[in-house]
């Protein structure tokens, strides 16, 4: 390649690279640096202390919060995987017309482009004390008292996660399914496989990359979430994100930063494990 052409290439990629440098690398580096800083009630003081990490890792609250967050992530992951796979499977293999396929696929993705905060608020009329769920159950005579656990509980948090993030599973899994050569399915049938056997032994393994991508999205989002936990649990549940937000609101920036570093390491570790299953560049 000529020198001039190489320059053009670098110029073309420069805006993107610059944004990542200024607003991803430098801020993450700042977090790492600040996590070693000292602080008092009014300001942060440059220093090199391990105290923030010590306080964090020696506190049982931290461990409980991390455990709770991982639990949320696992439950959400399992639910979104099963639901997302089933939905994608229906659209990819049972809908015959490509136009209908596109329309149904869009129907699943449109909520992604609307506000998460609003979509959480929209559960209030359903789950509230006098909400639709309680009124219906009481009218049917199934319960006498309104169920209190519907809104502001772990249940509501997981429900909101599934509601918000299942489409992160649907899209990559659907993408994987549409690439499966249909003659493989015929071959499986000709070889005597039942529908279930085809699903388990042919389709499922070929969807692995899609499943991995969807899982990475869902798990990383839930691990770093704080707004869903705060809104849907009404402050009753904890999450790592919420713990950081609380430290921030008390102006304990170095403490929040130390927590952020630990969270980042954990998330990167999980993602690295899942990336082993998939080469993302091949999936585009």
């Amino acid at each position, binding site marked *: 390649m000529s020198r001039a052409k190489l320059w053009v290439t670098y110029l073309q990629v420069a805006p993107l690279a610059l944004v990542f440098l200024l607003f991803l690398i430098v*801020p993450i580096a700042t977090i790492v640096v600040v996590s070693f800083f000292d602080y008092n009630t009014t300001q942060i003081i440059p220093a090199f202390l391990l105290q923030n990490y010590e306080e964090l890792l020696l506190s049982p609250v931290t461990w409980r919060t991390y455990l709770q967050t991982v639990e949320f992530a696992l439950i959400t992951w399992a639910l979104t995987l099963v639901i997302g796979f089933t939905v994608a499977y229906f659209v990819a293999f049972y809908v015959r017309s490509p136009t209908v396929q596109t329309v149904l696929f869009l129907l699943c993705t449109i909520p992604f482009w609307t506000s998460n905060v*609003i979509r959480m*608020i929209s559960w209030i009329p359903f789950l509230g004390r*006098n909400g639709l769920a309680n009124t219906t159950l009481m009218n049917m005579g199934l319960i006498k008292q309104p169920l209190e656990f519907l809104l502001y509980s772990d249940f509501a948090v997981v429900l909101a996660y599934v*509601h918000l993030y299942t489409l992160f599973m649907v899209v990559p899994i659907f993408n994987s399914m549409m690439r499966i050569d249909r003659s493989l399915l015929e071959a499986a049938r000709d070889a005597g496989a039942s529908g279930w056997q085809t699903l388990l032994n042919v389709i499922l393994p070929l969807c692995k990359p899609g499943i991995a991508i969807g899982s990475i999205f869902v798990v990383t*989002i839930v691990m770093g979430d704080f707004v869903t936990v705060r809104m849907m649990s009404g402050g009753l549940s904890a999450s790592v994100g919420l713990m950081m937000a609380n430290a921030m609101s008390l102006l304990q920036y170095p403490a929040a930063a130390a927590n*952020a570093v630990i*969270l980042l390491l954990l998330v990167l570790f999980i993602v690295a494990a899942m990336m082993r299953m998939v080469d993302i560049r091949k999936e585009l």
Partner: protein
Amino acid sequence: MQHGKRGLSFWLLGAFFCLFVLFLYGPTLTILILSFQGPSGGLTFPMNGVSLHWFKNLFEKQMVGDFAGSLQRSMILGAATMLVTVVASFSAGLAFRTRFRGSGVVFYLAIASLIVPSILISLGIGLLFRVLGWDPAWYTSAFGAHLTWTLPFGLLIMFAVFNRFDRRYEEASRDLGATSWQTIRHVVIPILLPSLIGVGLFGFTLSYDEFARSLYTAGTFNTLPLEIYGMTTNVTTPVLYALGTVTTGVSFAVIAIALVSVTWLRRRRARHGSDAGKAA
């Protein structure tokens, strides 16, 4: 599976799909209905009459903070994010077609930008500005924070698009004597226009709805999601739903514009497509 009559599994899976769609859209439809609640109505059913009371309420400044201002800020920020996302993603997409030193690094940065939790980006940029003694503002720090979320989507879409792009169009254009700029302007961009609109859709809507990345980066003036979030803690009237209806309405309008223009472009292309074999 593909042939013959629909079996039981089709109907079961179809029912599951319908339930899923109901689950996706049901709550939003409910607040849409409830936002037209009468003046004495509450946050849940039943409806006490039908009125536009809560929408009027929304635009009275003293009632609910600064709705109009935050809406305006979010629209401007969304438009700016959209513009930069389309241009930077397209241009990076062009660059990635040739192998260059550092391409792997940039690619993995984009992936990292997607998987690093939003709150860490928000926190990092907030801290950075604090350490430097700068004031965060929605048009500087929040703008950058939003780009770290929209650009990876834009780049990945451009990868997918260029993987399917037939380079012979460019070669033909060059053979006919076009400069590289003319080729991009008159050949590549028109062919990729539907995808560029798609990237723009991501750019606008993701920025317009972004909460976590705005949290510590927006500074003094709230963007719309921050404003809505603030309201959830102190507003207990259907004005909250009116806000939801207006916000979702804007999102749907943007999505509709994008989808309609993409469909229109496709149709037009099908009509005026190739004139091969039509010569007299």
